[in-house]
Structure formats: structure tokens, C-alpha cells
């Protein structure tokens, strides 16, 4: 019997995804209303639940793709994959006012550069504090703090060891997960409640998944503004990481 059920779930994987995620959403909104009186947003709880499930799946299956490694739930990979994610993000742009983007444009570009430099310095500084002394490792770990894509791309370009690359991916993952979880709680403190700060936030954080989920849990109206700048972040990071940033680290290191 289990096998025939498994057959249905693989054949109709996306439908299973809709059902499971729908139920998760319902449960999260119920938790939000019942125990926090709506103070903690339902979508924030849902994202947290998703991450928790991903943690345990990783712990039990030893895989790298969260709940997708559980055969019954493989459809969640399609639903939460980059294809549908990008499609849905673009759709949120339909309500955007072009004047708002124009007004925040310059700050958005500035935020992109500042975000990349500050994340890189944070990552590189921590790497040095943990005893790394060679420019290649320091740069790769710093690049990982930009995003988990910039880390390995930079590492591969400048010849980092696979161990350091894995660390840089982990640093980027921690960043993206943290942005997902913490943003709705920090938002009131940093005035993240209007299109302008959302554009800046997207540029400073840059992790597409973190920004997408963090803003969704804060205020869905802000999503397109943040994702617009975040869309350029990883590419800019890949451009600067193996070039400007690596050369800067090499020049600044003693010896």
C-alpha cells in the first residue's frame, strides 16, 4: 500500500506540495492568531516551520535539500524552486509604482555596493579572528558572507580548498536563513515599512531568498521593492569577489 501511495506522490508531486504548504500556512496562521494575537505574522511562523522541517530532514536524511530529500515531499522542491519563485516575485511587481523606484534608485545602487563591502568585511574579519592568514581563504569566506553563491564562485576562481568553500557556503546559508527569520522583528526598529527602505534593505542584504522571505513576513507590499535591488546583488558580488575584493585583501595582508 505504501508503495502505491508513494507512486501517487511522485506522479503528482507538485499537487502534494500545494496541499502540504497550504496546510502549513493554515496551521501557522492559526498559531499566529491563537497564541500571538496576530503579533507574530502567520507567514513568519510558516517560514520558521519550513526551516525547522528542513533542519530535521537534513539531520535524518543527510541530504542537502531540506524536506525535498524525503521522497513523499519532493514536490515542495518544484513549488519552492527558482522557477516558480522568480515567477511569483515578478508577479508582485504588478502593484509597484515606478516613481517609488525612481526615488529610491540612487540609494539602492549605493546600498548594493555598501552591502557587498560590509558583508565581505564582516566575513573576512571573522575568518581572520578564527586564525586564517592566507588571502585566498579569507577572501573566500568573506565572499561567502555576501551570498552562498558568491562564496564558491569566488573560491573556485582564486583556487580555495574545498573545505574553505564549504565553510563559505555555510556562512552564506546562515546569513540567508537569519534574514528570513529576523527581518519581521527588526523591521520596526529600522523603519523598514516603506518602499524606499525596502529598496535599500534589498541592496544591503542581497540574499534573494532571505530578502524575499523576510519581506513577505514583514509586509508583502514591500516584496517587489526589495527583490528588485537584491536581483543584482549576487551578480555584482561574483564580479567584485575574485577581482577587487581579492586584490584588496592581498594588498592589505602583512607579508
Amino acid at each position, binding site marked *: 500500500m505504501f508503495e502505491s501511495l508513494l507512486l501517487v506522490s511522485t506522479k503528482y508531486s507538485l499537487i502534494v*506540495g500545494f496541499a502540504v*504548504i*497550504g496546510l502549513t500556512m493554515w496551521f501557522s496562521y492559526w498559531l499566529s492568531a491563537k497564541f500571538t494575537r496576530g503579533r507574530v505574522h502567520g*507567514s513568519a511562523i510558516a517560514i520558521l516551520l519550513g526551516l525547522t*522541517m*528542513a533542519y530535521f530532514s*537534513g*539531520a535524518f536524511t543527510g541530504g542537502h*535539500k*531540506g524536506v*525535498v530529500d524525503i521522497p513523499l*515531499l519532493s514536490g*515542495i522542491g518544484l513549488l*519552492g524552486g527558482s522557477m516558480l519563485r*522568480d515567477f*511569483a*516575485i*515578478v*508577479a*508582485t*511587481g*504588478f*502593484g*509597484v509604482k515606478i516613481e517609488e523606484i525612481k526615488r*529610491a534608485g540612487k540609494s539602492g545602487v549605493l*546600498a548594493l555596493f*555598501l552591502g557587498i563591502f*560590509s558583508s565581505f568585511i*564582516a566575513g573576512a574579519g*571573522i*575568518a581572520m579572528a*578564527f586564525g586564517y592568514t592566507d588571502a585566498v581563504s579569507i577572501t573566500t*569566506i568573506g565572499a561567502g558572507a*555576501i551570498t552562498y553563491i558568491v562564496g564558491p*564562485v569566488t573560491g573556485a576562481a582564486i583556487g580555495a580548498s574545498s573545505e574553505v568553500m564549504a*565553510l*563559505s557556503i*555555510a*556562512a552564506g*546559508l*546562515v546569513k540567508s536563513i*537569519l534574514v528570513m527569520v529576523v527581518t519581521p522583528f527588526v523591521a520596526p526598529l*529600522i523603519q523598514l515599512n*516603506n518602499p*524606499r*527602505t525596502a529598496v*535599500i534593505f534589498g541592496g544591503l*542584504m542581497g540574499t*534573494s*531568498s532571505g530578502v524575499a*522571505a523576510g519581506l*513577505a513576513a514583514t509586509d*508583502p*507590499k514591500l*516584496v517587489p521593492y526589495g*527583490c*528588485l535591488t537584491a536581483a543584482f546583488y*549576487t*551578480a555584482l558580488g*561574483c564580479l567584485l569577489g575574485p577581482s577587487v575584493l581579492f586584490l584588496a585583501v592581498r594588498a592589505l595582508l602583512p607579508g
Partner: protein
Amino acid sequence: MIIYGVSLLAICTLVGISIGQVLGHLLGLPANVGGVGIAMILLILSGSYLNKKGVIDPKTEQGVEFWSAVYIPVVVAMAAKQNVFGAFSGGAMAISAGVTAVVLGFALVPVLDRMGKEKTQASTSISSPSTDRV
């Protein structure tokens, strides 16, 4: 028809992502350069153009709005497929590198917000964020 809206969204997404991919290739980067952002701008521009022409009826709009509404569930699914276990088994260094980057990022939001405002406040009046759709 609803499919017109879905199709408009699909065309904008494909064109935007393709431009981003080609840009990345031209710059020699293994990444998509702003594809989602370009697609979004295409949708905003074509949406408001077609709207002015009176081509977009409420049904067409629903085709886009459905996907915009499905966005949060998609993000929850995305969260559920992250390598959370891998992130936290990366050790103290990976965790503190990620945490420091995030703290710095949050701290810089109000700084940048203020910087831009001081310059533009004289010329443009700050309007309240509005919620109406294009």
C-alpha cells in the same frame, strides 16, 4: 481571459531572465545579472502601457494577481528546501560570519535611508506609501 495575464507575466519573466543571463555571459559571470529585476520592470511598464490602452480587463489582471498571491506559499516551500542542517553544522566560524554580516546590514538600513533623504528632501516632497495598483 485569465491566461492573458499569466502569459504576459510569463513573457516578461522569460525576457527578463534571458537578458540577465546574456548580461552575465557577456560579463563572464556564472550568475544571472538582475534578471528578476529586469523582468519586474518589464511587467510594470508593459502593464501600465496596456492598461492605458484599455486592453487589460479585470480577468487578465487576476492572472497576474493569482501568482502574486501565491508568492508567500512559494517562499514557505523555498524555506523548507534550504540546507538548514548544513548551515548550522558549518561550525562557529560560519555562523558568526553570517550573523555579523546580517547585523551590519540591518544597522546600515537607517544610515542609508537618512543619507538619501537629506539630499532629496528639498526637491521632492515625501508622499505617503500608497497601496493602489498599476
